[in-house]
């Protein structure tokens, strides 16, 4: 019953997009109310679908045939919905955050008197629709399509303030960098079609299942002359390009900090909670395909672990509050990738969920601070906001504790499970994973440090500017979303208390594990665990390993927190970056990654202008050369036309003589 309304989950925000776009300027609040109504409606329908999945199991239906082939390529390119535990959970997350962000936007955009509100709400609506379309997609092609649409909305919303110089440039960069990743993704999609003839995620004829059977030798597919495993690794890595781009993993992460040029609610919705999650979600969606390829998994884990550490170090020195959050986002998605690569399907999904809540919370909290600070984002101008905006402070603190991974906030549970999975599978004979685990572990104290550096600089100490002394108050429409998310950030971890279960031996409190096992047969969590190439190893026993792992990561997090307290929880904090020496410059400049990409872009344009010169000079030069040769010879030959009639007569005579001679010789007249 509920499943029949699943398309409406996607279409409702789309409707609000149309309303805001065409009628927004005639509506009160610039179309915000339509957006809130639509996303709230989607939220309710999603919850309904979620509950129905719980009672009736997963559901898949093809809704629309986009194109269908025949003959040797009988591919059905369809749109359909796949509602299983993973997508139902994601639907609830996306619609919930979208609704809250819409409400928050009332405070951030409408109350601040921004112009272009219909465009803003149209963008939000289209984004929500595209993201939901991506989430419910039942095949890779549909997923790719909505993946791209999500990118478009990101472009439109980052570049919202198009009258300034920064946002359009950041929007361009975001689209271009993710497009570069999507290029590989598209090759992957095409390769999947060419290999399997289908791109369905679920069902007996779905490509992850076929891949599994092909590796086992049960079916043959077109692997273009490669060994099946090798070919699936290649295809999987190609599709990983899109994931790396969208989820801002190294080396395509550079767009995300720039994307903070967009309005803060957009950063919360798109660049923290949902769109960036699309990449990770995609890997989780077709995890069965990756599971057959150990190499691809190892690469995913390594990219994830490296990004987690790499991005965290850059977050340490940033001055703007949103920049810190941006790098922490990159870093946290690194954890999810690490989990996926380490065979921790549930762990990744878990962290995806908790991160969505606490990062949305942190961004909205930062938005609240930015409203209060009259759009000054520099943390060194803040300070002492704790007393003036208590709701923001306490919720922000909850989010920060979750981000830092402090017991018992949600982030602790999920991050701990990620690291645990990496650890046991690493110990089980995958030294590469241990390397990734080490990087993930190293990132823990760094994360805690920059998180609390941010908290202390923003809320503690003495106000360091006039605006911080007299901040602008925020209204209910800001506080309400913060409160909801604050509660979730504290409690969301309770859905999956695996360590507690393992240590205390309690059965049945790993709700998320059970939940994700309810899907169609090959899409279940324990099936993935079976397929994945890893085996587990423990330090001592399982419970010991859990305890050791949790203790180490919690200890490191607390260490980072304490260091931050030491340095910045003072009345007059000073910059300590000078102590980093030469590393400081490297970190400030983001390891010169941006410079490197700008350099690549400039090289490309230099090559382009060389090509242009070549085209104008050589290719067109040949054309013009041919024409000038004929023009020149024409100008010479026309000199025959002397204008003197005697010459014409002479030419006629000679011509006639020559002609007669020719005919005579050929015809034998002179014999």
């Amino acid at each position: 019953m509920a499943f029949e309304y699943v398309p409406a989950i996607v279409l409702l925000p789309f409707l609000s997009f149309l309303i805001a776009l065409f009628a927004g300027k005639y509506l009160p609040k610039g179309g915000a109310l339509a957006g809130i109504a639509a996303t709230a409606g989607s939220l309710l329908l999603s919850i309904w679908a979620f509950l129905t999945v719980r009672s009736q199991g997963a559901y898949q239906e093809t809704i629309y045939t986009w194109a269908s082939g025949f003959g040797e390529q009988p591919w059905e390119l369809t749109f359909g919905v796949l509602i299983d535990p993973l997508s139902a959970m994601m639907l609830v997350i996306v619609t919930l955050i979208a609704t809250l962000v819409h409400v928050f936007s009332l405070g951030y955009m409408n109350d601040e008197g921004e112009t272009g509100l219909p465009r803003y709400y149209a963008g939000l609506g289209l984004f929500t629709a595209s993201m939901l379309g991506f989430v419910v997609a039942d095949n890779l092609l549909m997923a790719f399509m909505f993946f791209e649409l999500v990118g478009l909305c990101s472009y439109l919303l980052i570049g919202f303030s198009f009258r300034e110089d920064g946002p359009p440039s950041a929007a361009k960069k975001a689209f271009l960098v993710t497009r570069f990743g999507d290029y590989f993704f598209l090759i992957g999609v095409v390769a999947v079609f060419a290999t399997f003839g289908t791109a369905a995620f679920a069902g007996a004829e779905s490509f992850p299942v076929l891949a599994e059977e092909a590796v086992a030798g049960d079916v043959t597919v077109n692997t273009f002359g490669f060994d099946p495993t090798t070919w699936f690794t290649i295809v999987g890595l190609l599709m990983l390009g899109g994931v790396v781009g969208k989820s801002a993993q190294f080396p395509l992460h550079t767009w995300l900090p720039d994307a903070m040029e967009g309005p803060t609610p957009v950063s919360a919705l798109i660049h923290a909670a949902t769109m960036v999650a699309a990449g990770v979600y995609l890997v989780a969606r077709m995890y069965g395909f990756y599971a057959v390829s150990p190499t691809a998994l190892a690469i995913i884990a390594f990219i994830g672990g490296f990004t987690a550490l790499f991005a965290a170090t850059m977050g340490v020195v940033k001055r703007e509050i949103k920049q810190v959050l941006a790098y922490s986002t990159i870093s946290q998605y690194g954890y999810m990738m690490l989990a996926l690569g380490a065979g921790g399907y549930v762990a990744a999904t878990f962290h995806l969920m908790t991160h969505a809540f606490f990062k949305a919370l942190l961004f909205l909290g930062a938005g609240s601070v930015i409203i209060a600070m009259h759009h000054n984002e520099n943390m060194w101008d803040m300070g002492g906001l704790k007393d003036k905006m208590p709701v923001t402070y306490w919720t922000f603190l909850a989010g920060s504790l979750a981000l830092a991974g402090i017991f018992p906030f949600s982030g602790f549970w999920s991050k701990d499970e990620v690291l645990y999975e990496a650890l046991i599978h690493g110990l089980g004979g995958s030294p590469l994973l241990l390397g990734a685990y080490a990087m993930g572990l190293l990132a823990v104290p760094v994360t805690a440090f920059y998180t609390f550096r941010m908290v202390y600089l923003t809320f503690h100490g003495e106000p360091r500017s006039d605006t911080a002394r007299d901040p602008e108050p925020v209204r209910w429409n800001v506080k309400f979303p913060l409160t909801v998310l604050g509660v979730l950030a504290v409690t969301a971890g309770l859905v999956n208390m695996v360590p507690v279960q393992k240590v205390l031996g309690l059965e049945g409190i790993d709700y998320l594990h059970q939940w994700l096992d309810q899907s169609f047969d090959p899409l279940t969590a324990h099936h993935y665990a079976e397929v994945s190439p890893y085996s587990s190893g423990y330090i001592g026993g399982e419970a010991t390993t859990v305890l050791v792992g949790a203790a180490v990561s919690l200890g490191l997090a607390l260490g980072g927190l304490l260091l931050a307290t030491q340095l910045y929880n003072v009345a007059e904090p000073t910059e300590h970056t000078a102590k980093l020496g030469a590393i400081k410059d490297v970190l400030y400049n983001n390891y010169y990654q941006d410079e490197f990409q700008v350099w690549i872009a400039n090289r490309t344009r230099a090559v382009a202008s060389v090509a242009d010169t070549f085209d104008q000079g050589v290719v067109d030069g040949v054309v013009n050369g041919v024409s000038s040769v004929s023009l020149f010879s024409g100008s010479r030959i026309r000199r025959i036309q002397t204008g003197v009639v005697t010459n014409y007569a002479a030419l006629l005579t000679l011509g006639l003589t020559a002609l007669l001679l020719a005919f005579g010789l050929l015809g034998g007249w002179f014999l």
Partner: protein
Amino acid sequence: MTTDETGNSGSSLVPGLAAVALFVVMAVAIVQSSFGTAVAFPEGESIVAHIGYAMFDLQGDMGTIASEGFLAAFLIIAIGLDVAVDGALFLAKREEEGSIVALLTDGGRELLDTAEATTAATAEEASMETDTPDSTDTTEGSR
């Protein structure tokens, strides 16, 4: 060739060699060729009279020597000759100022000059007006 003989009339004989060459080629070809025996005209018939018949398409009724009918050609040539004579007169009658032929060859410069001269003339002295009709009369009279 074209430049150095503008003054004197027809000095260079070199182009004439082409004519000689043409003659040589034609002569060789002619000498080498052979024709069958000639048919010739029947004895006793008046050739001139038969030409007359042919001219007026009467050869079938009156004559015995084969020929085409030329009445149409005769009439066309007659008209052609008339046109030629008229044309010759037309070309010959034009004198000085503003002739069409002059315009064709000088790109209209003369017309411009004439127009300026005329305006200048009318502005300066009106007495000249009597001269112009006079000259026109003379031209028409010569026709």
